[in-house]
């Protein structure tokens, strides 16, 4: 069965701080949205698979975010935890239209 998605507007592109994350609440879940230094917007589940750390508060380097609790390194594009730890987080597709940022979440 094809999964249908819903596009949720989260705000102005320019309002997102550069090289930082932002916590966004969509329905019952929290998503971490990052505006990377190369201009791309990435969105992942805002919960580290290790101990549930708030990833939107992590330090961002290139395509990676470091969890603020125990420094796990997670790729914000594919959601994969980097060695020596392992695991993954849910990723969400993002789009920018008319300077507005949208996150695609599965329709309930």
């Amino acid at each position, binding site marked *: 069965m094809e999964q249908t998605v819903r596009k*949720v*507007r*989260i*705000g102005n592109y320019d*309002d997102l*701080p*550069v*090289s*930082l994350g*932002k*916590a*966004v*609440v*969509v329905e019952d879940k929290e998503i971490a*949205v990052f505006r990377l*230094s190369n201009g791309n917007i990435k969105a992942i589940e805002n919960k580290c698979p290790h*101990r*549930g*750390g*708030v990833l939107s*508060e*992590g*330090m*961002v*380097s*290139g395509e*990676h975010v*470091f969890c*603020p*609790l125990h*420094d796990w*390194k997670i790729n914000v594009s594919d959601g994969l935890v980097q060695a020596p730890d392992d695991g993954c987080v849910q990723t969400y597709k993002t789009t920018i239209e008319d300077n507005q940022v949208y996150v695609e979440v599965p329709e309930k």
Partner: protein
Amino acid sequence: MEKKKLVLIGNGMAGIRTIEEILKLLPDQFDITVFGKEPYPNYNRIQLSKVLQGDTEIKDITLNEWQWYEDNGILLYPGETVTKIDKDNQMLYTDKGKETPYDHLIIATGSNPFMLPLPGADKEGVTAFRDIEDCEKMIDASKNYKRAAVIGGGLLGLEAARGLLNLGMEVDVIHLADYLMERQLDRAAGELLQKELASQGMNFYLEKQTAEITGKKRVTGLKFKDGGAIPADLVVMAVGIKPNVALAQESGVEVNKGIVVNDHMETNVPNIYAVGECAEHDQMVYGLVAPLYEQGQALAKHISGMNHQGYQGSVLSTQLKVSGVDVFSTGLINETAETKSIKVFDEWQNTYKKILVQDDKLTGAVLFGDTKEGTKLLSLIKKGANVEEYLESQQGADNGESIVTSMSDDEIICGCNGVSKGAIVNSIKADGLSSVEEVKGATNASRSCGTCKNLVSELLTDTLGDEYEADTKESVCACTDLTRDEVVAEIKEKGLTHTKEVMNVLEWKTEEGCSKCKPALNYYLGMVYPKEHEDERESRFVNERLHANIQKDGTYSVVPRMYGGVTNASDLRTIADVAEKYEVGMIKLTGGQRIDLLGVKKEDLPDVWKDLGMPSGYAYGKSVRTVKTCVGAEFCRFGTQDSTGMGIQLEKKFEGLNTPHKVKMGVSACPRNCAEGGVKDVGVVGLDGVWEVYVGGNGGTELRQAELLVKVKSEEEVLEYTAAFLQYYRENASYLERTSHYVERVGVEHVQEIVNDDQLRKELNERMDQALGTYKEPWNEVLESETTLKDLYEKVATK
């Protein structure tokens, strides 16, 4: 050809070392079986006292893991005792009914603790100090009982006593002789030792002979022969050991004090050998590790059919393993009409050295307080060196030359394992070793008691020179090969101003660094250019970016500034109101005398700060944190100085200062040091008319006592010297290096030289003032900036 059957009775240090040596010489030649009474793999019995003292754990003193036995095809029967040897049919019988034939049999049954046959010695609470079980028994007793009596003031007794002190017990040491360790020390050293141990809390009964252990089921005390008595709920007998020879004796092997062996460790029965504490060679029975290992080597060569001269007896040396006390003894130490001695007693440093000379040859030595020379003296005495040779090497040492440089290749570095300087140097060169750990792995040096580690390290420096330094240099992180010093030098030279610029220009391997180098570079830039550098919030760890401390559930803690730990009713009322209004999860007093409001939601942080109306307490940063103070002269009847006033001044001056790692301070008004300055980064102690400033203490991960930096007269000077110290630390330490590591690394003498130089101190203070001049109270700064509030503290809600 069928393999020969080699059986070892006794799974301890001497026996297993022999097997290791045999495996080295002739791997795959024997079918090896080991029987061991204890249910553990071979462990380092010498380190048991460290386990008892809490410095290490049982799992860390294992020498050969189970895996080792498996890897080498050794059949191990732990917890199984051999009960009979049939020497005519070359068969063994065990308590579990096993029959095992042998071609070669090594007896390494060690020794048993000597238990005085006193009335009451069988009561509960009486133990020896020999194996893991005894150790566990003492640790258990310490949980329920208070008073321990150790019978025996020798090496083992004192190590046990120190361990029991660490376990929180009151400890009496009962000793027959009139000074401690009389077999290894002379009276002078013995008395120095007693003084030191008494100051650690041990209580001594010298020239006392125990007559009876009293109590009903469990011990309650000791009675002495002269009529005295003391209470005790734990009695440790540490009066000596006797070789465990019962099995050998019953089986018809010749036994005197120990199992009698020749130079090849052969007993009088063909194909039966003995090594270790159970063996008697040339009428000597040894109870220390080095001779046992030498015996093991000799036996291994013999069993492997190699031609060699055999075991020639050992020169003994002992070292007391009690933290804070350094004692070393080797060779003959009692003065006679034929001996002359070199004695140095330094009452100031509390060190004592005696070297005995007979016919111009060194015959023995006793060291107290400073035992660095021990290994060197042992090897000189072993080879029967002339006193001149020692004195010449002394001159080298005085010139700052490493003690290992003047050693010849055959001199022993590791006494326990008999590893010579030559062997280590060859291994360093041939195997390309570059660390103490690698040397340990390749040569066994420093594997047993560990006291020769610094000699091994010096040998590495000596052999590899700059290369060793190069290998030990630490890069900032995996993103670069440059060290902290190199990066800082480049920042200054090239005028770099932003972390990304540093990474680009210095060719970082990653595009945007990592969570290690980003905050480090941000700190270095701010340190080098306090005025110009614009702090990068994206290079800050969350706590420093948000000025609150993240908790495991994603909430934050708020600690308002409370200078010197002094507060007032109105502030307390405000704090209470805020806590209620925002329903904080917990209100807690911190170790730094502050009030911590835990469980605050991120979105509430700005409002909490606004309602508090107090400055940030900086409980989250790599920065000056708190200045803890004692009550001081204003109220305390012992106080000699205004410690709260001094603490408040220090905290107001340095608040918010970025430092390589957190900096905690304490100010006390008398030597009782209630503010615990001895374990602070900066500890100030007020005495009558004098302030002492201590630095480099740590009460955390690695306990370290702060060292005296300077004594000054006025409060202004306390501020001035503290500023100079902190600025010097800021400019030279690596990011995330605490003052304790930093001071340990460079030495307090070095820091003293710097801050005592009037010109340098003045310049450091100027640069400190520049750094402090840029301070802005962060909570207020956030409240005044719409952008920051929006960027960092707002959560986006969607529809």
